[in-house]
């Protein structure tokens, strides 16, 4: 047993199955793509074998890569191998522009954790995942990413 994130330990690596393999293949080509129903056009994430709305066949389609932060956390305690040197780091749940009901969890890069806000606009960057051959989507804050609740909607009034 060694403590998390010791320098020799790589971050967790994905173990794709037949349905998620295209997700990682798109990333390897520098594209962020998730499943979409070829019958009813519903976006779907995480992966399934068929559309959960209509039972139709799913294919992968590219996202534009921009979205809005629904929520976020700042990780201080070491809970994952390979992240010791990055602490504290921010992870956000990002709603992609095309799919208001989908949330993608990813690290926020190129910003101090205390700069991150709910409602901020973000854009994907695809980076190498250390310790293997995979690429990973991370998000950077957009320069004009003013906090905007109009984009989010959904919550009851405070």
């Amino acid at each position, binding site marked *: *047993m*060694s403590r998390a994130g010791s320098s020799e330990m790589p*971050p967790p*690596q994905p173990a794709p199955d037949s349905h998620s393999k295209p997700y990682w293949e798109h990333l390897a080509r520098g594209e962020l793509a998730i499943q979409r129903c070829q019958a009813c056009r519903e976006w779907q994430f995480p992966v399934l074998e068929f559309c959960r709305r209509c039972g139709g066949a799913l294919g992968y389609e590219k996202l534009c890569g921009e979205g809005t932060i629904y929520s976020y*956390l700042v990780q201080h305690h070491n*809970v994952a191998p390979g992240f010791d040197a990055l602490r504290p780091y921010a992870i956000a749940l990002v709603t992609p522009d095309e799919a208001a009901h989908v949330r993608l*969890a990813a690290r926020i890069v190129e910003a101090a954790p205390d700069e991150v806000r709910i409602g901020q606009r973000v854009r994907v960057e695809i980076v190498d995942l250390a310790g293997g051959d995979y690429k990973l989507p991370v998000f950077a804050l957009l320069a004009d990413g003013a906090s905007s609740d109009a984009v989010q909607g959904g919550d009851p009034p405070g």
Partner: protein
Amino acid sequence: MKREAAIVGIGRTAYSRNSGKTTLAMAVEATRNALADAGLSLNDVDGMVAFSTGDSVSTGAVGYALGLDGLYFQSDVAGGGNVAALVMSQAFMAVESGNCDVAVVYRSLNSCSGHRFGTFAGPIQAGGDSQFSAPHGYMVPGQWFAMWARRHMHTYGTSHDDFGAIAVTYRNHAVNNSHAMARSPLTLEEYHDSRWIMEPFHIYDCALEADGACALVVTTRERARDLKHRPVRLLGHVGYTGKAGLNDQWDDMTCMYSAFVAPRLWDRTGLAPSDMDFACLYDCFTYTALATTEDFGFCEKGEAGSFYRSGRATYGGDIVINPHGGLLSEGYIHGLNHHVEAVLQLRGDAGVRQVEEPELCLVSAGAAAYGSALVYAGD
């Protein structure tokens, strides 16, 4: 006449940071203690229910170790704190349907000395849904609830003072609980000065990992008349799982499973939150207690912080919530310890922390997208 069931006995081990015991030894000890408390013998047991996340021992193994020839009703539920009320409901149903006459429900775990989040034997290969999160350093439950808590802060202006008020209230309750692991009083200043785990959570926002076991005995209400203690009845149970438990995909993180369970539970029992004399709310994190205090209707949405701060959730207020100190201060026996406290209080056996003549209580279990809750009554 319909068979009715009741809780007739409770038992537990010490709750500690390092039990030095196996989950089997602790399950056996808690079960023996619960049967002795009830005034029943091992030979009476013909049913067993337990839950685990792959970190405990099966009912079959416990029954065997106790010397039972066999069990007529056996249920090993795969689940976390979200099923801690479901398992009690199962035991009641098993007795009331005649599947068994005496059912033992237990939870046994070494959540402190056993596997710890943040320790790894080797490189991690993340399959299934975790392949999309773990490579980002997003891989422990507290991170989900931190996302939910931050959203509540954004929507309602909820502050760290609000989370702190819950941690302080429960700790002050645990001061009067000799079975609790953390009994030194906590001030709001100490709360704010404590280290971050994952913002917005300090260490005091997180449940106290514990080693230990507890058990409850359920039999018929008729048989309970001849036993030692005032029995405890179940008035209704409701569980809910949303989005298959995919917490990141839940629509509105300012409300939990409890927003779906509460209206159905109050409707089914014909009761209201104001009827409850105390409540044991699942509190893996302060935010879980905050959101569920609101969802079950003890206060308005967005007002839980001031509800706790103004003393409405403690002795002399509207309702005593977590008189034992909860998972935050008594210890993380995965929520089954909340049911033990409910029985102690309803029997009038809670000693210096006794709630005044309680008749009804709510016990909740779980967090975020999945959970269950029930109402108990003294007989």
